[in-house]
């Protein structure tokens, strides 16, 4: 069992356009909502949107720490994105002892879900 199995794990990061651009390069997309601030604001957002899958990646990293070997053969990750993350946001992603996954910014929850192994 991982030494992190019985703890709430946390990842904090300040979102920047540079992070969004870096994720976009490996993701290989050209969705302008991630890169054109004026366009994003015209659609009612606070700014460009970070990739939801990028935020998921932070949570998956916590799960790798929590579950160790079992994560790679029995792991299950569910994420639902409920609000945007924009440049300047302080993002906090937590994975609780019982596997609840949550991402928050100052405006509230941005991602919910779970990470588990086996038949938890």
């Amino acid at each position, binding site marked *: 069992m991982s030494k992190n199995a019985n703890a709430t794990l946390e990842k904090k*990061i300040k979102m920047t356009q540079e*992070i969004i651009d870096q994720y976009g390069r490996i993701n290989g997309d*050209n969705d302008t909502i991630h890169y054109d601030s004026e366009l994003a604001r015209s659609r009612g957002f606070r700014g460009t949107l970070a990739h*939801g899958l990028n935020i998921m*990646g932070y949570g998956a990293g916590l799960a790798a720490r929590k579950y160790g070997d079992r994560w790679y053969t029995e792991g*299950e*990750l569910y994420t*639902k*994105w409920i609000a945007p993350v924009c440049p300047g946001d302080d993002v906090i992603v937590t994975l609780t002892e019982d596997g609840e996954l949550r991402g928050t910014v100052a405006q509230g929850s941005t991602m919910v879900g779970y990470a588990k192994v086996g038949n938890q």
Partner: protein
Amino acid sequence: MTRPSEVKPREGDQPGTPYADFEVGAQLPEMQFTVTPEINEEYLAAIDEQDADYYTYKGRPVCAPNVLSVYLLAVLYRRYPPIQGIVVFDQLWKWRHPIFADENTDLIAFGEVTDKFEKRDRKWLRFTAKFKKTDGTLVAEAAHTLHLPE
């Protein structure tokens, strides 16, 4: 090495697929690609993973299994090229076999459109995908829900 951009049609590169054209039950054809140590390292950097030593399986270095997430939409987009404005809603992953980080791994991904519906004045699409090694070993399964712009 296969960068996602080599296999994933990008928004705006060709006419995108309107909601009406998606067919429930449509098979998403096989896509072959190679996950390399370099791709994994670039992915880990993109998700601000500063300690790759956490990623081991029985003492051997492995890729973050979620590296597959940057390839998932390619499975859909190769049959249905994307339009601008697609928004991700949820995603489910089940990891079933490690991808080792000290070698190249050839993978085959394929999928199926499982649902489309209109709800709360939005148009929704669901698809599933499987990722297998070339010897048939199941590596991961995914299900993804998107909402499509008008």
